[in-house]
């Protein structure tokens, strides 16, 4: 493996700035890596080598002219396939969007391009971001770089695996109930779900509009801060985006790396741990807490009693919004069009039905049915209405908890990566993966997941999650960077150094 690609994005930025490397060299190195290992990993649905190299050459030209577009100009990036990219296929992991090439860029993609980041390609995901394992992709699953027989998490398993396997320095993900954080945990990478409204959703193909957020997928806390600052901020095209300046995230990460957390109050969420959590995950989590204490933080236990209803509320609100969002995929204007068999001159309705039947996978259909039911008259109050009330209660729990602590802590996911196929036939078991990550989406607060180490029983990565009040994303970076320094020191280097070298691997 080329040493070039083992650097963090921050190191690459420095190397580009001092001329020790070029964007073309960096981009080519990543394309080479993709060529070598993606057959085994399947992190990408679409690789745009030509486009990326052209963007890289343009970046190098800007550098030579002394006019780089920013600190990250020239660092290649991968983008989850749920974000619209002009001229590049965008499938959302679904057959129904096979062949669709958006005529416009998502705001975050436009920001990447404006800042000069070559786009390597689009990463795999559970169909329309519905899943926790990337097995629901219509284009086949992504494999966990730590163990190719295991899931990389989901829905953003492609972005996390690409970053963990050094197929990209960093990537964009989206998080509706944990789709950035849970893949981060099971692949030993860092993932951040920003405050709801902190990053524009324009061009993000909505799963559940009131829960979705775009965020960074990286190997270090500082890299997440760099990417988050780049993509964050108000967008007039997204009415739900917050019209407030992004707090100094990079500064917070830099400050946190000093390792002094005195005066900080950390709340451990009682309801997110214990029963149902793998022993090795719990153990690594406790060590993380101990590290924070060692750096001067005060730890308290906080209770969020409504969190026990979070999963139920989430699986009403999400399908309700999704059932409506997915109605637009009707074969009339774009995407897959299937004509029903044995029908002479089918009506528009018959074509819609046949196309949706052929284009959507089982999990998508399951949630469309669930959501349609939850919104039906006579059931609305009992399901969607109740779920919204639970949502309010969860927000109140957070408010109370943040009255006692500056940041809240829990394991990111209850277990390490499970085996491919293990939970595919048991939706409830699959849904339980997001138990700890869902409350943040329901309340709109920001969260980060970073590696807490390897679980003793299986040697696989576990993650620790930190949550902060809305718009206090900077706290995550300060505390996250501090913990990352302490843990890296303990491990004697980045956790990913212990991941298998994939050269020569095959799926």
């Amino acid at each position, binding site marked *: 493996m080329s040493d070039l690609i083992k650097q963090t994005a921050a190191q690459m930025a420095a190397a580009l700035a001092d001329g020790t490397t070029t964007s073309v060299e960096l981009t080519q190195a990543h394309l080479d890596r993709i060529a070598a290992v993606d057959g085994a990993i399947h992190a990408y649905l679409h690789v745009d080598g030509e486009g990326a190299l052209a963007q890289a050459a343009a970046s190098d030209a800007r550098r030579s002219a002394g006019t780089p577009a920013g600190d990250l100009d020239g660092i290649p990036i991968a983008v989850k396939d749920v974000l619209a990219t002009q001229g590049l296929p965008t499938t959302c992991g679904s057959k129904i969007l096979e062949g669709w090439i958006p005529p*416009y860029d998502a705001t975050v993609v436009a920001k990447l391009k404006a800042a000069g980041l070559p786009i390597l390609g689009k990463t795999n995901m559970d169909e329309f971001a519905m899943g926790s394992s990337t097995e629901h992709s219509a284009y086949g699953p992504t494999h966990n770089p730590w163990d190719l027989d295991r899931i990389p998490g989901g829905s953003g398993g492609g972005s996390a695996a690409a970053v963990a396997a050094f197929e990209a320095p960093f990537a964009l993900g989206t998080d509706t109930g944990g789709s950035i954080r849970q893949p981060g945990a099971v692949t030993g990478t860092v993932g951040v779900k920003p405050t709801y409204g902190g990053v524009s959703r324009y061009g993000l*193909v909505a799963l559940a509009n009131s829960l979705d957020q775009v965020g960074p997928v990286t190997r270090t806390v500082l890299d997440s801060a760099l990417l988050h600052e780049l993509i964050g901020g108000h967008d007039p095209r*997204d009415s739900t985006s917050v019209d407030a300046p992004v707090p100094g995230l990079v500064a917070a990460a830099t400050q946190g790396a000093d390792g002094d957390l005195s005066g900080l109050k950390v709340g451990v969420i009682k309801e997110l741990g214990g029963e149902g959590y793998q022993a090795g995950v719990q153990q690594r989590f406790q060590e993380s807490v101990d590290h924070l204490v060692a750096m001067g933080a005060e730890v308290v236990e906080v209770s969020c009693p409504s969190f026990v209803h979070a999963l139920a509320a989430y699986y009403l609100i999400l399908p309700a919004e999704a059932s409506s969002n997915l109605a637009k995929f009707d074969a009339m204007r774009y995407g897959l069009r299937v004509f029903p068999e044995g029908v002479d001159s089918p009506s528009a309705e018959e074509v819609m039905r046949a196309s949706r039947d052929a284009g959507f996978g089982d999990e998508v259909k399951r949630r469309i049915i669930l959501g349609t039911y939850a919104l039906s008259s006579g059931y609305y109050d009992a399901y969607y209405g109740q779920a919204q009330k639970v949502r309010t209660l969860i927000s109140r729990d957070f408010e109370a908890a943040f009255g006692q602590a500056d940041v809240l802590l829990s394991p990111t996911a209850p277990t390490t990566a499970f085996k491919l196929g293990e939970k595919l036939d048991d939706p409830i078991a699959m849904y339980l993966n997001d138990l700890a990550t869902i409350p943040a989406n329901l309340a709109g607060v920001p969260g980060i997941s970073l590696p807490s180490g390897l679980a003793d029983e299986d040697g696989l990565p576990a993650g620790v999650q930190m949550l902060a009040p809305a718009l206090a994303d900077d706290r995550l970076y300060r505390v996250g960077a501090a913990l990352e320094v302490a843990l890296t020191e303990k491990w004697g280097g980045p956790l990913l150094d212990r991941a298998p070298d994939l050269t020569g691997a095959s799926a």
Partner: protein
Amino acid sequence: MSTAAEVTLVDFDDVLASYDPAMGLEVHVELNTVTKMFCGCPTEFGAEPNTQVCPTCLGLPGAMPVVNAKAVESAIRIGLALNCEIAEWCRFARKNYFYPDMPKNFQTSQYDEPIAFEGFMDVDIPLEGGGTETFRVEIERAHMEEDTGKSLHVGGATGRIHGADHSLVDYNRAGIPLIEIVTKPIMGSREKAPAIAKAYVAQLRELIVALGVSDARMDQGSIRADVNLSLAPKDQGGLGTRSETKNVNSLRSVERAVRYEMQRHAGILDAGGSILQETRHWHEDTGITTSGREKSDAEDYRYFPEPDLVPVAPSREWVEELRATMPENPTVKKARLQAEWGFTDLEMRDTVGAGAFGLVEETIAAGATPQSARKWWLSDMARRANESGTDIADLGVSPAQVAEVQALVDAKTINDKLARQVFDGLIAGEGTPEEIIAARGLAVVSDDGALGAAVDVAIAANPDVADKIRDGKVAAAGALIGAVMKEMKGQADAARVRELILERLA
């Protein structure tokens, strides 16, 4: 599909003998904002199909809506004009149903939180013997929503989806802001139901024109009325099952559709049948309604708050600011203008009744005298509208053109009879009044030589009449004038002809 043949229509008076009608009117007003409801696309009417579209109004994956503040302002102004409460906080909601001309397969609308609610409009109904009666129509709500695209069914005889070879969809209209104004059930209207329905829509249209928030062209669909009608047994209260007649696109049709549905319902009920709750199509040409899709209460739009938009919370200061800049109330304005124009009550009632009040007002503003404006609209134009079954406003003659033609009459370039031919030309789209006069050769002959010759011919041909005039019976000149005008094919100034005759026979 039911046909006219299967329908038994009960005589209107007999309907009233057995039943009480209840109406609900839903009027969609297309706003004239420069851009669409949720995106920056232009709203101009008549552009090439699918040229005024973007990711948002095409419902492309990932695109998001942003509320047009100007549309909110127009909605509030309409609400205020209808004496409504203006919501302090309201949301958009998704109305979910599948239809090919709806890009997202949900319409972004408002559900239980409309921007305006609980208002009323006092409608003036002309009375048989003259004068007007005021009927209060209660407004339930006015809410904001987006229009759908427009389907064009190609092939097949009917232009409808059944039997068509294929369909095309134009999304230029998708996302154009609409305000839907819904009345409460209108009860106790009895025999005046058709007239009340027409007068309500007419007055609403006037109000929209006064507010300047819409082109208010019924013929172009910028105002569309849905007529809900039901019958209940007479004097027993309650509401019967309703039919919803969609897209009734002229004032005259609103009246006719109400009358027709009353007669049709009664025919079914008299025969012991029951009314199907369904949408119906109004056919302007045949004056009947036919069944559309069946619509039961079970039809479920699965409304829920639009999660991509933030609530609309108009500040009370803004609402009061808008209230302060409201145009004059049309009723007050009518009284003021009647006095200004010197119209009698009867003249005013006829003007309003013909749907010509605004047209007369604009014609006077364009320079015509009140009486000449009234004359053209109420005699000539009203007759033409009646004959062709179109709204007087949609004839193709504008108030400015009427004023221009009257100015030409005043200048003796043409006379009243020729003016009518100019109007023929305007309706046929032959150009400006001046162009039509030139092309049709309509200018009056003011050449005394030619006129004199015609007068001489007439005198010679009618020696008896000439003698009477010579004897001082000047009134007899009419016969000679008629003969000269006939000779000149009407293109002469009758007053000048009279002068020439009297000169010669003095």
